[in-house]
């Protein structure tokens, strides 16, 4: 398979994995705020675990580039959030405030998918093993993200297919960014740690600025803490086998 097609395929897989998050809603109509909180907690643990893996790989190629990339990733997410807060929109049949929150969440996830796509594409510069590791890490943590998005959309009347569609949409930047990132890194190998750092920084900030506060707001601290730490440990364990 042509390398570019392979990169795109990997990116597409991670995007499709997000759609899996809508699956539980084929069986249940709504998920309580607590359920969403739990999904957020699991997603946070997985993302932090994925970041551990990313940081390890990134710092092997260079500590400063990784950290600089991470700072850029953080700034990127912050900027996206600030821009979104300026808009007052209505989204389908949702009221204004709920619409803004939903839109914010979807757009933030879409925006940070850019950085994940960069990580996927850039990881090919480090060999197939790294590429597989990064791709699986991102795909796995995409599932709870899809769950979180679906949990907001489903109770508002969006169909399961619609939820899956929006979830996949939020991850579309991944295959789209993976290809140029791969081509860029192929030409400029030193860009790899920047790309990895970028994805890691964006992910970490997403966890602390969005996912965790949401989770703590809706569920008991100890349950959230339990889910986060167990998911984190499981993710690190999982990555050892890739």
């Amino acid at each position, binding site marked *: 398979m042509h390398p570019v097609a392979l990169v795109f395929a990997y990116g597409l897989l991670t995007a499709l994995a997000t759609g899996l998050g809508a699956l539980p809603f084929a069986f249940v109509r709504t998920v309580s705020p607590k359920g969403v909180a739990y999904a957020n907690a699991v997603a946070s643990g997985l993302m932090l675990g994925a970041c551990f893996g990313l940081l390890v790989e990134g710092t092997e190629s260079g*500590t400063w580039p990784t950290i600089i990339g991470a700072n850029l990733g953080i700034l990127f997410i912050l900027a996206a959030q600030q821009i979104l807060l300026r808009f007052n929109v209505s989204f389908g049949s949702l009221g204004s405030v709920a619409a803004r929150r939903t839109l914010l969440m979807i757009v933030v996830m879409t925006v940070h998918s850019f950085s994940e796509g960069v990580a996927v594409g850039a990881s090919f510069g480090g060999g197939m093993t790294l590429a597989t590791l990064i791709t699986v890490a991102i795909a796995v943590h995409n599932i709870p993200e899809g769950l979180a998005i679906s949990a907001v959309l489903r109770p508002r009347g969006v169909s399961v297919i619609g939820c899956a569609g929006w979830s996949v949409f939020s991850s579309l930047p991944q295959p789209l960014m993976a290809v140029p990132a791969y081509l860029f890194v192929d030409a400029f190998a030193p860009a790899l740690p920047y790309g990895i750092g970028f994805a890691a920084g964006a992910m970490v*900030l997403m966890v602390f*600025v969005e996912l965790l*506060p949401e989770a703590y707001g809706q569920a008991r601290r*100890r349950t959230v803490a339990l889910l986060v730490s167990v998911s984190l440990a499981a993710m690190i364990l999982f990555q050892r086998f890739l």
Partner: protein
Amino acid sequence: MNPTITVLIYSSIAAASAALGAIPLRWRDSIPTAWIGWANALAAGLMLGTAYVIVVAGLNRMVWAGATGAFLGIGFIYWTHLIAHTEDIDLNKLDETGPEYGYQVLLVQSLHSASEGVAIGVAMSLNIGLGVFAAIAFAVHNVPEATVLCAVLRARGIRLRDAAGLAVMTNLSLILLAIVTFALITAMPLLLPWALGFAMGALVYLVMVEPLPESYRQAGNTSIALVTSVAMGIVVLLNGFLL
């Protein structure tokens, strides 16, 4: 130098640094809530960064034993909170004056420090340089943590120097566990991945169950997220350069 002495010295530094946490309260009777939130976030980020550094160092030996150890560590803290009836305790209440609250706060702090001690002992077993790094990282982490504790104790009318003393006293478990862990692992190297996982699981859980959720109630999400991420990043960066 005998490695056990090294463990003793550096774990003592990590424990004693809590006294520095009292300094901000020297000139003011109380600290604005947002600052307490940032102190919590700083402590949380430093802890997570240190946990990451230690996990990375021991990654190759960990796998199943490490993962199981992590689940045990998480479960242990969860369980001890449960039996001490402190699972939902808000450690930052500045207006709670019941005597039981005081004891609970100090108990939880001792438990927290014990986990840090295990982490230091494990890190020392892996590599003395890593152990020193971890001890210093915890020393820095213990300062904002102690500031928060002293703020709570001051609000209960305890004199500042007594509060500082108590903050250091609750850290004695750190020194004890560091020495014990180091000695045990030296005697039985098989324990290393278990202890490593245990310490990491416990530390991550502790961060997630107390300082982090507290901080979100004390300051804005964005500032907390930034402080936590930057603190983590600094630890990772320093580790990349020093080790």
